[in-house]
């Protein structure tokens, strides 16, 4: 094997030259990058190889877990008592709302039966905890401590008690990767809670969100609450997502609408994953248009 920068005399040369090896490996890397970033072909390879790296990752995460648990261990008694009383108050409030909710759900079911509508979507949920930020600095992602073994599926919505945080994008056996709402590539179909106007919300950097492709004349005001519309067939409808912070109608066709996430997207630990228990019904196939007949010569 000859070395880069140190050519050996021809009689000792064996195998491809370093430059050739470099070119081959670089082209393999570029092909992998395109296949992964553009077409998402390599998810299977990633899942398979992550089994091999798993023990090492667990071992590496152990000191971080220890530090986190130590911080909890040294929490003072006063703090715990304060927390406890606040939680009791909230539980009382929640119990009262839950009673009312059960009654309403029963009523909803009966009314739906009377009107001959299909049953409302059954949901499933998994409670989880955010372990840490994903190490890749180019995305806004976090890692959860629940994975496919606990029933997490890609596409589930991630919420906390205030509203939506993001979406599960990659699932490992006992961990899951969540893309936060503030990520540039994360889009959520939403509607304005006040008037039902639909739009697409996407990350805009610096912890802000942007309501895209909304006409300048649209009825959106500062302070409006945006909730999921459920049109994508993945998210449940009605989860609070963001509040409108500023509306700029001077742009040409579309207004520039900046929003702020309702839930503290970048500083929360306990989350709930919500998904549909059954896949959404298939989209209706458009009927093939009848072949236009040739006009008869008259």
């Amino acid at each position: 094997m000859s070395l880069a920068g140190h050519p050996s005399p021809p009689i000792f040369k064996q195998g491809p030259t370093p430059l050739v090896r470099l070119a081959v490996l670089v082209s393999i890397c570029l092909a992998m990058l395109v296949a992964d970033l553009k077409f998402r072909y390599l998810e299977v390879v990633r899942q398979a190889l992550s089994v091999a790296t798993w023990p090492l990752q667990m071992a590496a995460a152990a000191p971080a877990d220890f530090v986190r648990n130590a911080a909890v261990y040294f929490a003072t008694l006063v703090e715990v008592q304060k927390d406890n009383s606040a939680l009791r108050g909230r539980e009382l409030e929640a119990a009262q709302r839950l009673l009312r909710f059960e009654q309403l759900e029963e009523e909803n079911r009966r009314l739906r039966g009377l009107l001959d509508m299909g049953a409302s979507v059954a949901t499933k949920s998994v409670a989880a905890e955010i372990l840490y930020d994903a190490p890749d600095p180019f995305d806004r992602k976090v890692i959860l401590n629940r994975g496919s073994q606990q029933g997490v599926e890609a596409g589930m919505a991630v919420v906390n008690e205030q509203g939506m945080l993001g979406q599960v994008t990659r699932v490992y056996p006992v961990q899951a990767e969540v893309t936060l709402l503030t990520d540039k590539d994360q889009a959520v179909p939403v509607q304005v809670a006040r008037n039902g106007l639909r739009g697409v919300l996407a990350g805009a950097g610096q912890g802000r969100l942007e309501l895209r492709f909304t006409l300048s004349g649209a009825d959106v005001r500062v302070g409006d609450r945006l909730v999921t519309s459920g049109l994508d067939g993945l998210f449940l409808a009605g989860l609070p997502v963001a509040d409108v912070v500023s509306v700029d109608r001077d742009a040409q066709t579309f207004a520039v609408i900046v929003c702020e996430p309702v839930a503290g997207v970048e500083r929360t630990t306990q989350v709930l994953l919500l998904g549909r228990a059954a896949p959404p019904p298939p989209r209706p196939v458009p009927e093939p248009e009848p072949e236009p007949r040739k006009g008869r010569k008259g």
Partner: protein
Amino acid sequence: MQPTHRSSRILLPAKTWFAWLSLLVALGLSYIPTGLTPGVPDWVALVLAFWSIREPLRVGMGAGFLFGVLVDIGHGAAMGQHALAYVVLCYLATSVSRRVLWFGPTQQALQMFPLLLLTQVIMVTVRLVAGAEFPGWWYFLSSLTSAALWVPLNYLLLLPQYQPVDRDDNRPI
């Protein structure tokens, strides 16, 4: 005592299993979840560069590719992002190895800094072309801390090669 080409000290040959073990340990260190803390050194790149300079016949672009892919998987980065950067790093480190070994560890660190910076520039370029957000200038702090760690790491990874085969008062090695 300087283990460079200038010194008269003769080192034991490095063991292949030790090189691969050190690479595995570096991989484990890179998996420690530090979140988005700026300036976390790139352990795998450091150890790969070290072995590409010391043992270019054993650890080279193939190892760079393999460990790059493993880092990509562990970090959830784009597949091939670290692999591409490490392959280029190993190629350049191999090609400057004969020259770098004439200098002492501190001067070696100064020469490693541009190489480590280049690996980061490659990664940023790849992701920006793919449409990611710019992570901010603090991202490049990592190559500075990595280069600063070159001297202690150099000493640590050369330790097994310092040991004499068997102790003999008449032999100065």
